[in-house]
Structures are given as structure tokens and as C-alpha cells.
């Protein structure tokens, strides 16, 4: 090959390499930027007075004197709205029956839009569900609800051959000539005074339990469950994996059985995680009965089996990478095989073993499928360490899925879902970082 072709090949290789790194970086940005920007909104947002009321009532948090003065000032403006409603209700009674019926339907829409915005109106019976006890707690949601109050969505189906088109009608026009027509501009102009939005930092999103299936409150039980599951899986898998790796590298005689075991291990690493989930249900819960129902322990065991192959493989590689001279030096000093493994080989291999452990820990924290049938529930309170043997737990990965698809009001609580995603990504990142630090310290010690 002449030098010119070689140069061209070399350059094009460099270009492809840099190009793929750039593509990866862009992909990472596309994934991470929305996660971070949307996720942060769960903690930092413009909260309304309804959020502060909720915090005081549900979590006994906040300054009650300050709040009651705020409530008083917002009630001054709300009172006008309530007066307009009672005024219109009185007016309704004086109308001709057919006109009354016509307005009644429209009026009940206005009422429910107002309830969504401000919470229960005077005359409503106190609701049982926490979600209907408060108006909008977040300002950006309140603005959406204001739009719902001001405009009615209608569908134009004048052309029967195509699907209808959405258009918005100003609700105020529907109440032309009645006293209620004043309500719409009033609410529009005074919404800020009625809801008193201010910048809120809600750390409770991380430390609180959820209220009324994630409508309010935080995600602490999910975070805790994720930790329990991931660390529990490591407690089982890490020692087992290291022992198995030591056996493969130091004790096992090369032969048919050994190579079968190794290839079985590699195959296991490629088995889809849902298979482990089903296996965990059938084996740990239905056969071994490690717990009466789903439980953290059953989930941790299932995850442990899932990450075991990775740990074994990486520990094996790390042990094999220890220079042969270490082993020979130790043995020549009269040390036993066991002693050599414990004092020379394992410490030298530890950084590599830890790397495998870290990758697996992150995987255990993020997996959904193995815990669907063995550990995860969509609602449950935070569990204590003593309950890991008997209680299932909510966990971030599963609850993200649950909120995305199954929750009855998924579209109203997107911020919680984003917050959970950010929390999960941060936990995995945190685990990785802490393990990198540990690893760095271990290798430093070994060198020193």
C-alpha cells in the first residue's frame, strides 16, 4: 500500500472516530437535557398559595401565620368571584325555564373550571380526595386551567368527510347579557392576586411520601425502595460473584465442565431481564416462598441473579489481569494458595472487580422488568429495614412506567414523572461516582 492511500485511510478513520463521538455526545444531550430541565421543575417551580396550603395541611410545614395572612389577601379577591357566582345563580332562578336549562349546562362547566383553578367553591361539600381539596399548586398549570375557563374547546364537523377540527370559543360570549360575563375578565386580570404565585423550592419532593397517588408530595418511598433493591442485590451478587470468579480462575480444572459453566454464565448475561422477573416470581416467591407476597428480598434476589454473570465475568478478567509474577513471588515465600489469593491476588484485582460491581449496581437500580412481579408496587409507604423480608416497595423504575401509562391522571402529573426520571438518573450517577472514588482510593493504597 502506498503512503498516500495510507494517509487517506488514516484520516478517514480519524474522521469516523471523531464523528461517532460527536453523534454520541449529541444523542446524550438530546436525552439528558430534557430529563434535567423537566426534572428540575419538580423541585424548583412557581408555586401558588394552594401549594403552600397543601404543605401546611398535609405535611405541617410552613409558616401558618404568614400563610393565613396570604390566604386572607387572596380571599379578598376570590370573594368577588364567589359573589359573581351567587349573583348569577340568583339570576338563573329568575330566567324562563328553557333559557335556564341552556345556561345551566354552560354554568356547570364554568364552575368545574373554577374548581380546578381555585379549589372547592363555597357551597361545595368538602371533597374526600386530596386532589380535589386544592386548586392548582403550580402556576404553569394554573395558566392552562385559566385557558380552559376562558375558552371552550369545540369541534367543527361541518365537512362530514373529514375529521372535525378543534376551535376555541370565548366562554364570555356565551354569557352575553348576564351578570356572569364580568367574571371572565376579572379572573383573567386577578388570577395572580388569587393564587399568589412565588418561586418555590420544594426539597420535600425528594424527602416526602406521596399524597393521593402522586398528585402531591414527593417520591421518598420510591427512592428508598430503589436503594434497598440495588444494594440488596449487590449484597447477594457481589460476594457470590467474586467467589465464583476465584473458583473459575484459581481452582477449576480446565475441561468440558468448566467451559460449559463459563459459556452458561455468558449466556445468562444475555438473557432478557423479563425472563429473570418471571423466574424470580416462580422460584423465589412461589417455590421457595422467601416471602408471603412480593417483597424487597425477592426483588433483590432476582436482581442479584440478573447481575451475577456480569460480576463474575468482570471479576474473572480482573483476577486474570494480575501479573503471574505476584502469584509466583507469594508462593515462593512459602505462602499457601488460599493465603496468596486473599492477600495478593484479590487486593490487586480489587479495582477491576469493583468496576464490574459498579456497572451492575447501576443496572440493578434501573431495571424494571425483574421487579414487576417480585418487588414493585405502584403505591405503598416507605418501608423500614425490618420490612424488607415481608413488604414490597415502590421503586423509581417501576413507578416511572406506572405514571407514564397506567395512572388515571398521567397527563396532570407529568412533572412528578420527570422528577422521578431525574432522580433515578442522578442515583445511578451518584452510585457510579462514589464507586469511582472508592476505586481510586483502593488503587492509590495498593500503589502506596
Amino acid at each position, binding site marked *: 500500500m502506498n503512503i498516500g492511500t495510507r494517509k487517506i485511510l488514516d484520516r478517514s478513520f480519524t474522521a469516523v472516530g471523531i464523528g461517532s463521538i460527536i453523534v454520541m455526545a449529541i444523542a446524550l444531550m438530546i436525552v439528558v437535557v430534557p430529563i434535567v430541565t423537566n426534572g428540575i421543575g419538580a423541585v424548583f417551580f412557581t408555586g401558588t398559595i394552594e401549594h403552600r396550603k397543601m404543605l401546611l395541611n398535609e405535611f405541617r410545614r410552613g409558616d401558618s401565620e404568614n400563610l393565613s395572612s396570604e390566604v386572607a389577601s387572596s380571599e379578598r379577591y376570590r370573594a368577588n368571584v364567589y359573589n359573581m357566582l351567587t349573583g348569577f345563580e340568583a339570576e338563573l332562578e329568575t330566567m324562563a325555564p328553557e333559557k335556564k336549562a341552556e345556561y345551566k349546562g354552560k354554568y356547570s362547566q364554568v364552575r368545574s373550571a373554577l374548581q380546578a383553578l381555585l379549589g372547592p367553591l363555597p357551597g361545595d361539600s368538602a*371533597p*374526600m*380526595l*386530596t386532589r*380535589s381539596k386544592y386548586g392548582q399548586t403550580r402556576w404553569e398549570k394554573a395558566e392552562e386551567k385559566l385557558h380552559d375557563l376562558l375558552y371552550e*374547546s369545540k*369541534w367543527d*364537523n361541518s*365537512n*362530514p*368527510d*373529514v*375529521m*372535525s*377540527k*378543534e376551535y376555541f370559543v370565548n366562554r364570555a360570549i356565551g354569557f352575553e347579557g348576564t351578570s356572569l360575563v364580568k367574571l371572565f375578565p376579572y379572573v383573567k386580570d386577578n388570577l395572580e392576586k388569587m393564587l399568589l404565585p412565588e418561586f418555590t423550592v420544594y426539597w420535600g419532593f425528594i424527602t416526602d411520601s406521596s*399524597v*393521593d*397517588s402522586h398528585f402531591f408530595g414527593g417520591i421518598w418511598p420510591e427512592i428508598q425502595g430503589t436503594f434497598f433493591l440495588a444494594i440488596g442485590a449487590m*449484597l447477594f451478587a457481589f*460476594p457470590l460473584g467474586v467467589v465464583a470468579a476465584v473458583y473459575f480462575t484459581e481452582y477449576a480444572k480446565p475441561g468440558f465442565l468448566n467451559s460449559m459453566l463459563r459459556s452458561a454464565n455468558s449466556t445468562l448475561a444475555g438473557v432478557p431481564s423479563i425472563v429473570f422477573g418471571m423466574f424470580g416470581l416462580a422460584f423465589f*416467591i*412461589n417455590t421457595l416462598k422467601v416471602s*408471603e*407476597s*412480593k417483597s424487597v428480598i425477592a426483588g433483590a434476589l432476582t436482581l442479584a441473579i440478573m447481575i451475577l454473570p456480569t460480576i463474575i465475568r468482570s471479576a474473572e478478567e480482573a483476577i486474570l489481569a494480575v501479573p503471574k509474577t505476584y502469584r509466583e513471588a507469594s508462593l515462593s515465600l512459602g505462602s499457601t494458595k488460599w493465603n496468596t489469593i*486473599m*492477600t495478593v491476588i*484479590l*487486593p490487586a484485582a480489587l479495582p477491576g472487580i469493583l468496576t464490574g460491581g459498579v456497572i451492575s449496581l447501576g443496572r440493578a437500580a434501573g431495571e424494571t422488568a425483574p421487579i*414487576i*412481579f417480585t418487588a*414493585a*408496587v*405502584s*403505591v*405503598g*409507604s416507605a*418501608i*423500614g*429495614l*425490618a*420490612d*424488607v*423480608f*415481608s*413488604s*414490597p*416497595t415502590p421503586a423509581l423504575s417501576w413507578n416511572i412506567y*406506572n405514571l407514564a*401509562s*397506567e*395512572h*388515571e*391522571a*398521567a*397527563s396532570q402529573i407529568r412533572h412528578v414523572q420527570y422528577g422521578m426520571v431525574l432522580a433515578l438518573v442522578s442515583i445511578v450517577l451518584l452510585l457510579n461516582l462514589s464507586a469511582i472514588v472508592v476505586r481510586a482510593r483502593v488503587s492509590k*493504597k495498593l500503589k502506596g
Partner: protein
Amino acid sequence: MIELMIKKLLQLLILLAFTVTAAANAAVGTIVIDGSTTVGPVAKTFAAYFTKKYGVRVTVSESGSGNGAKSLINGSCSIAAMSRAMKAGEIGAARTKGVNPVANIVAYDGLAMVVHPANPVRGLSKAQISSIYRGIITNWREVGGPNARIVVIQRESNSGTEESFKELVAGKGVQITGSAETQSSNGSVKSRVSTTLSAIGFLGLGFVDQSVKIIAVNGVLPNVITVKNGTYPVTRPLYFYTNGQPSGSVKQFIELPKTAEGKRMISELGFVNH
């Protein structure tokens, strides 16, 4: 250093041993609910209320009616939430395992047929819906709508809602068209219908919101009155199944739908009281 690690590991094991003994005490007073995604909102709300009022921990999984039944048969849940009655086969399987499933009706639910709000079709007859799901009617034009292919959305085989739908509308043992899309929960049916102009699907009444449009079945729209008096043709009860007659806190939980507060929660969630 390895010795230090082993020491730490031993300490951990001792700690674990302690927690095992502690767990034996903690296990008392937990209610585990598994099953239907349709009953999910009721179960979750009841769970929060019950935990607050009696201090008993309640966990809720929404994995589908079929899985709820399996969990009850295997003894891995105390209450199976189901949006259909247990089948004879399931009851048989339970009996052989020494489990005696008892049905407790929580609430009634109308199975709402939903389309995208842009769809001008206001109502369909049961026969028309059945034909749509069997693949005989494939275009909205055939039922008075615009010229658009119907995207049929059904639930997975594990779903009680799917079984109720088949039983009440399509007819038992009917083969649903192979081009039907399968979604795994009420929530995902709703989001699919609300983003697909020509879709049709079915939802528990508690899941309906403005993002989809309910259509009348045989000229009747589902609401509290029509579901309660049975004029809405696709009405079904929702169940909490227990093993034998429940006692203790499970009994208290099962009886929540009979209390005034339980009834309020059910109706605020959009379901219909027993």
C-alpha cells in the same frame, strides 16, 4: 484489608439476622393488593385513606385482573382487585390450592367506548361495535363518520376489562380482528385514543377525561344514573376478591365501600357506588 472487609461482611450478616427476627413482628398488619388497573384508582385511594386512619400499611400493585387472580391463588396477596368475575378455571385452581375466593363488590363501572374528540360519530349500536372489533366494519364511513380507517384498540389478554368487553359487547369466544392494537392499561388506551384521530377503544369510567370523547352505546351514554339502573348496556361490577371470609384489617378494608366516606371516594373517582 480483605480481612477488614470480611469483618465488615460478618457484621452485616449479623445485622441481617437481626432484621429477620424483627421482620417476623413487622409482617403483621400489612395488606397486599394486586390486580386490575381499572380498580387501581379506587384501591390506591382506599389504601392511602386506610393507612392514614388505621396505621395499617397497604400496598397496591396494578398488574391486571388475571395476575391478581393468580396472586390470590398463590397466596401472595391478601386482596385481588378484579374488573371481572373469577372464571371457573381460576376458582378450581384456587380450590386445589386450598384457597377459597370470595367476591366482594366494590363499585360498578360502565365500560365507556371512547374515540378522539375530533371524531364526529356520536354513538354506535352494540352490533356495530361488535362488527368493528371483529373486523367487519373497517372504515368510519360505514357508521356515519368521515372516510378514515378505524384503528381498533383492545386490551391485553390478562385484562379484566378486555374480558368484560368481549362478554358484554363482542360476544364470548369472538375472535377480535388481528389488526387490533393491544394496550396494556386503561391509561395507555386513553393516551393512544387521544393522540389518534381515527381510533376507538374502551375505558373504565373513572379513567375518562376531556382528552377523549365518550360515544353512546345503543343511544345511551354512560353516567352514574345509566350505569346504576343498568340502562347503559356495558356495565360491570368491580371486585375485591379475598381468600375466605376476611377478618381483621382486611375485613375493615373490604367494608370501606359500604361506609359513607368510601362511597364518596368512589364517586369522586368517577365510579358508581354499589
